C-alpha cells in the first residue's frame, strides 16, 4: 500500500486517471440530475394548467 499523497499522483499517470474519473463522474451526474429537474418543472407546469382550468 502507498501513502495518500502518492495515490493522488498516480505514479505519474495522474492526468489520465483523474481526467477519466472526472469525465465519468460528470456524465453520470447529469443523468441523475436532469430527470429530477425535468420532473419538477413538468409538475409545476401541470399544476398551473390545472389551476387555470378549474377557475
Amino acid at each position, binding site marked *: 500500500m502507498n501513502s495518500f499523497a502518492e495515490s493522488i499522483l498516480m505514479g505519474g499517470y495522474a492526468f*489520465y486517471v483523474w481526467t477519466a474519473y472526472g469525465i465519468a463522474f460528470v456524465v453520470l451526474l447529469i443523468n441523475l440530475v436532469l430527470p429530477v429537474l425535468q420532473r419538477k418543472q413538468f409538475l409545476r407546469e401541470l399544476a398551473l394548467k390545472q389551476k387555470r382550468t378549474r377557475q
Partner: protein
Amino acid sequence: MSFVPAPISRFFHRMASPPHFYCLTNKLLPWLTVIFILLLGYGLYAGLYLAPTDYQQGDSYRIIYVHVPAAWMSLFIYVVMATAGAIGLIWRIKLADIMVICSAPIGASFTFIALVTGSLWGKPMWGTWWVWDARLTSELILLFLYLGIISLYGAIEDKRSASRAVSILALVGVVNIPIIHYSVEWWNTLHQGPTVTKIDKPSIHIDMLIPLLVMAIAFKFYHLIALLQAAKVELLKREQNSQWVKTMLESET
C-alpha cells in the same frame, strides 16, 4: 391458452399499471440511492487506494475501475433495452415502451464513458488515443446505435409509433452485442482479450478484482436509479391527462 401462470401474470399486470409503478418507484428510490452511495464509496476507495499497483502498467491501470464496469453496462443496458422493446412490441405494454426510450440516454452515457476512459488509458499504455481495431470500432457503432435510437424517437411526432420504430431499431442492433464481446477473440486487435470472464480463471489479482466487482455492482444500482428517475418523467408526460396524475397533483398542492 397461456404460458404464464395466472398469479405471475397478475403480478406483472399490476407492476405495469402506471400509478402502481410510480408509487413503488418512490418507495424504492431512497433505498437504491443509499446502497449505490455505499458501494460507490467503497469501490472508489478500494480501487484508487487499497488496490496494489500493477506490475506492468503502474497506476494507470486504475482506469479499469470505471472503464470496464462502464463497458459492461453499455452492453447490459442495450440487452435490457432490446428486451423491453420486444415486450413492448409483442404485448403492447406502455411501461415497456417507456423503459426503451429511458434506457437509451443512460446506455449512450456508459458507452461514451467506456470510449473516453479507454482512450485516456490507451494513450499512455498503447501509445495512441484511438485505433480502428474491431473492439473499439464495434463499441463506437454501439454509441451510434444509442444516438440513432434517441434521435429517431425525437423525430417521430406520434410517440406510440415512435416507440414501435425505436424498438425495431433496438432489436436489429442486437447483432452488434456478440460482435463487441467476441471481437477480441475473432480478430487480431490492439485491445487485449477478456480478463474477468475467462473460462479457466480470471487473470487478475484478487485485491484488484474485488474493487472491480464492487464498482460493477454499484453501476448496476446507478442504472436502476437513473432509469427509474427518467421513467417517472416519461410516465407523467404520457399520463398527464389520466385521473391518477390529477389526484396526485391535488393531494400534493
